[in-house]
């Protein structure tokens, strides 16, 4: 029996090391995880979490959550999440020592091509959770990284210290300061392009940012990758519920966010 795929995704009950608010909107969940699982993790991949019963609610389907950090040395797996509904409310109820059943690592990670020396990461809100581990990888590979972090208010900016500690240039834009509008974002990015600091873009989530980056990318021939979200049932490619349309040549194709993604070619992605 050759040619049979090897086992890559694992269903594991992991125990909670901590689960604390990061600011008003986000929480950081730290799980104790086996080293060999952590070594398989890559930036951009996700886990599919089986949220517990809590407060009379019983979330049924698993919830996909990007790997925010994976630390084989410490044996830790980190998730940064925003409480939005029954599943994330249940996650927020987890206490030290509780078990959380996770499935992963899943999906295709970000890639950094050999000739991408200067990376630009553009993120807003919880998108930071997805992009943060990319900074670690860029650092490991000795690439330069500019992290453009956008938020409603300076208080809600997260991970900027983290990016800075990994040697990234951090640019913060906030609604409160009036610096996060698209026009300003375009000026900032064009500035990076002009100074040769943009070989590739990495982004996720926001429709408007995607459109802007696609325009700039096309203008200057700069490639990029985007991490996308879609509702998921199985998380491993079986059910086809998580598809999104993409442009491939002159055809539109449907690809599974859990399987061909969640990281896709930025130019092929279709704004929604």
């Amino acid at each position: 029996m050759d040619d049979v795929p090897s086992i890559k995704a694992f269903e594991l009950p992991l125990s909670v090391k901590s689960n604390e608010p990061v600011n008003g909107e986000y929480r950081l969940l730290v799980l104790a995880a086996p080293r060999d699982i952590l070594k398989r993790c890559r930036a951009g991949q996700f886990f599919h979490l089986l949220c517990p019963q809590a407060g009379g609610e019983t979330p049924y389907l698993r919830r996909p959550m990007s790997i925010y950090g994976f630390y084989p040395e410490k044996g830790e797996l980190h998730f940064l999440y925003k409480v939005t509904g029954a599943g994330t409310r249940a996650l927020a109820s987890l206490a030290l020592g509780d078990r959380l059943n996770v499935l992963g690592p899943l999906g295709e990670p970000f890639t950094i091509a050999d000739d991408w020396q200067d990376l630009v990461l553009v993120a807003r809100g919880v998108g930071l959770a997805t992009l943060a581990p990319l900074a670690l990888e860029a650092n490991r590979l000795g690439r330069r990284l500019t992290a453009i972090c956008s938020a409603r208010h300076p208080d809600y900016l997260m991970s900027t210290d983290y990016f800075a500690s990994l040697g990234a240039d951090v640019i913060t834009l906030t609604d409160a300061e009036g610096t996060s509008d698209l026009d300003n974002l375009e000026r900032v990015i064009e500035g990076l392009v002009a100074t040769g600091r943009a070989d590739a873009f990495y982004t996720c989530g926001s429709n408007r940012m995607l459109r802007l980056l696609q325009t700039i990318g096309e203008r200057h021939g700069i490639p990029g990758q985007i991490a996308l979200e879609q509702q998921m049932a199985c998380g491993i490619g079986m059910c086809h519920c998580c598809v999104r349309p993409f442009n491939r040549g002159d055809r539109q194709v449907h690809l599974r966010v859990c399987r061909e993604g969640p990281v896709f070619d930025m130019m092929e992605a279709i704004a929604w």
Partner: protein
Amino acid sequence: MVDLSVDISGLKLKNPIMPASGTFSEDLAEVFDLDRLGAHVTKTITRGWRDGNPTPRVCEVNGSMLNSIGIPSKGVGAFIEKVVPFYAHYETPLVVSISGNTADEFATLCSEVSVPGVAAIEVNISCPNIEEDGKAFAIRPSSTHDVMRKLRAATDLPLWAKLTPNTGETSEVARAAEEAGADALVVANTILSMAIDINTRRPKLGNLMGGLSGPSLKPIALRMAYQCARATSIPVIGCGGISTVEDVIEYLIAGASAVQVGTATFIHPTIMLSLIDGLEDWLSNQGLSSVKDLIGTVIDGEQDEAVVFMEAAP
């Protein structure tokens, strides 16, 4: 040693646990060794390319789910070229699920997929079709009979007919499928349902409505499996809401010779392995040496036909 093997009209399965169509694919091989399963059942394919339904395609309802995936399909060519060879690496028999918009197209596909490497064909006669004003073939005994006759003529492989709960004539449909040559019945597919987001006032599914699967479906599908086992003499494969070994046992007692596990795999990807192990343990604790000794052992007394085959709640 408990004997878990079952015989589905001549096709021997090493155990009675297999996946339900649309909730399984090659991808699961990255989670566990697929050779442990009783059978492999593919997602339904159609002859030509199909895109499937608009998103969102799934939503949660009270500990169960709705889906309106539709049948995205790469067509029969791609299937025979890529999918069938994949499963050739396994000993577990491959069951191919197919569907068609018209009975003739359906039958053509049926003969096209009758290729080496395919052990049986599951015919999904439970999705809406155009010849019958949007009704599934399996809603009525007559349309069931018509399509099954054509399918029967199209292949020598074992034919499993997958029934729908969206009918008031379960026993009649089951008998029609048997008469027209079905070798087994898969009971059942999802039941048409709906959910609305009260904040946006939009249906939670892009396609307006979709099929209910998971634990909420179990009592309905179990009832149908029981009725079909009583109404016909071909094997019944139970399907609907199975998520514990007790559920498997309940279906077998009701008369199912094997079961399919769908939605539960989304919640626990390795659940089919636990069910196989759990079934073996349970049988052995009960002192039963073969799973066959459990099948159809429901004590239903001297119920008359009118009760067994009734179709509305009393």
